[in-house]
């Protein structure tokens, strides 16, 4: 699903990623760990080109999205991201946070379809009649909004926050915010979700509710790439654990092997500190 090939990234003279290769298969839960400042966030943010890579390829569903000429917005629709600090839209209510992207991109697609149909009718009337080309389907605006709202309500119900639909994010607790942020990315029906330390900014008593939601997603087969310091969670949920250090992947293994039989010296040292 994602094929990272020789990914390199530097900030100024500072080389943060020095050639990272990783394959993420459909249904994988890849957990990324590593010391502070080792480039975990940078790696994750390169996956959806939130940071533009300086070299290498990121093949997502067959397209190299590191290539600056692709329309990255199109691919990001299928690649959700959950941030340490939630990044909910402060000027939108909870339900609008969830609905905004689905409605906006559907309306933009609708506009494009209308434009295409107009062009076809004007210049390709013959081809149309002969059935060589056909008009795009154009959904009704209200139907688009209604469907998005129903889906958002369903998602809110799933996390037990249906009574919070009309409030603003500032009134929510950290755990509630993060769960809304997760369903906001779910609303786009992504093929994969990237998590950057989703529980690091939370009070300890709220970590559980967020991890539980992520475990549910894992059980449903969602493909996930997760940067976290929660080793217990990694052991329980991961299909692969990745150790990033000094800008490269030092070790990659299934969790049992990774934690019980680490090979890299730096990883051994790291694990002895965090476990």
């Amino acid at each position: 699903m994602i094929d990272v090939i020789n990914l390199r990234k530097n900030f100024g003279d500072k080389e943060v990623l020095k050639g990272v290769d990783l394959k993420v298969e459909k249904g994988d839960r890849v957990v990324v760990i590593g010391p502070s400042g080792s480039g975990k966030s940078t790696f994750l943010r390169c996956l959806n080109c939130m940071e533009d890579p300086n070299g290498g390829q990121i093949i997502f569903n067959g397209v190299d999205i590191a290539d600056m000429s692709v329309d990255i917005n199109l691919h990001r629709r299928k690649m959700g991201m959950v941030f340490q600090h939630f990044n909910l839209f402060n000027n939108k209510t909870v339900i609008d946070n969830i609905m905004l992207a689905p409605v906006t991109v559907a309306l933009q697609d609708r506009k494009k379809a209308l434009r295409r149909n107009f062009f076809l009718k004007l210049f390709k009337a013959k081809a149309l009649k002969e059935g060589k080309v056909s008009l795009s389907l154009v959904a009704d605006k209200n139907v688009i909004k209604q469907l998005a709202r129903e889906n958002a309500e369903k998602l809110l119900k799933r996390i037990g926050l249906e009574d919070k639909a009309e409030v603003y994010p500032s009134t929510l607790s950290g755990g509630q915010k993060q769960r809304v942020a997760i369903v906001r990315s779910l609303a786009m029906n992504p093929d994969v979700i990237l998590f950057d330390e989703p529980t690091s900014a939370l009070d300890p008593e709220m970590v559980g509710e967020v991890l539980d939601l992520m475990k549910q997603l894992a059980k449903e087969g969602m493909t996930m790439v997760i940067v976290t310091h929660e080793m217990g969670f990694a052991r329980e949920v991961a299909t692969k654990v990745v150790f990033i250090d000094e800008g490269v992947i030092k070790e990659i293994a299934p969790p049992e092997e990774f934690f019980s039989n680490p090979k890299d010296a730096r990883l051994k040292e790291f694990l002895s500190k965090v476990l």
Partner: protein
Amino acid sequence: MGNFSAKVNKFNDIFVNQNGYVTVLNGLKNTLLIAVIGLLIGFVIGTLIATVRVLPKYKRLPRVLNGICSFYVALFRGTPIVAQLLVFYYVLFPLIGVRMTGVQVALLVFGLNSGAYVSEIMRSGIQSVDPGQMEGGRSVGLSFKTTMLMIVIPQAIKNILPTLGNEFISLIKETSVVSFVGALDLYMAFNYIGSNSYEFMVPYLVMAIIYIILVLLISLGIKLMERSLKKSDRRN
């Protein structure tokens, strides 16, 4: 004191009996028109410039646009507005053969001028919005433009509303120079009354009071608007 009440009577006579109030109303209308339209034009120009200035700069086009915008802002902030009015009215438009009334030139110049100021206000407003808001929008597949319009700029406007209100107030005050290009504003109206009666004390006093009332009303309006926008800050 008897002297002063005689002056008041004189003012009254011109203001009420000789239709001085019509002139004042016209002046007030122009003052408000120039300030309001100026701010609206300035808001649109300022938002566009501010957006260009926060654009990522690794491509050529944004860099060129940025240069143009910097020049524009330096030009309009670096010269007195009187000079801008005079140049547009007596130099630029005659040169290109366009005829415009003083009020029209004032509308345009105040718009262009406040665009330069609003762009700086808006830029700091945009920069005060958490970068995470842009990332949140981009991460769900919204474009830079869409995220800017729907998420960042609304929050920026909320942050800068008091400053924008102050810009409006200073526009109101600065309109008093439009008489340089023959536009009738509040100052010009009272000046006219004063000239007719050879008595300026009361007309200018009333003028000052009207300016103060205008400014106080606007301040009140800003406060009310701020309060209604605070909704998304705490529990609704």
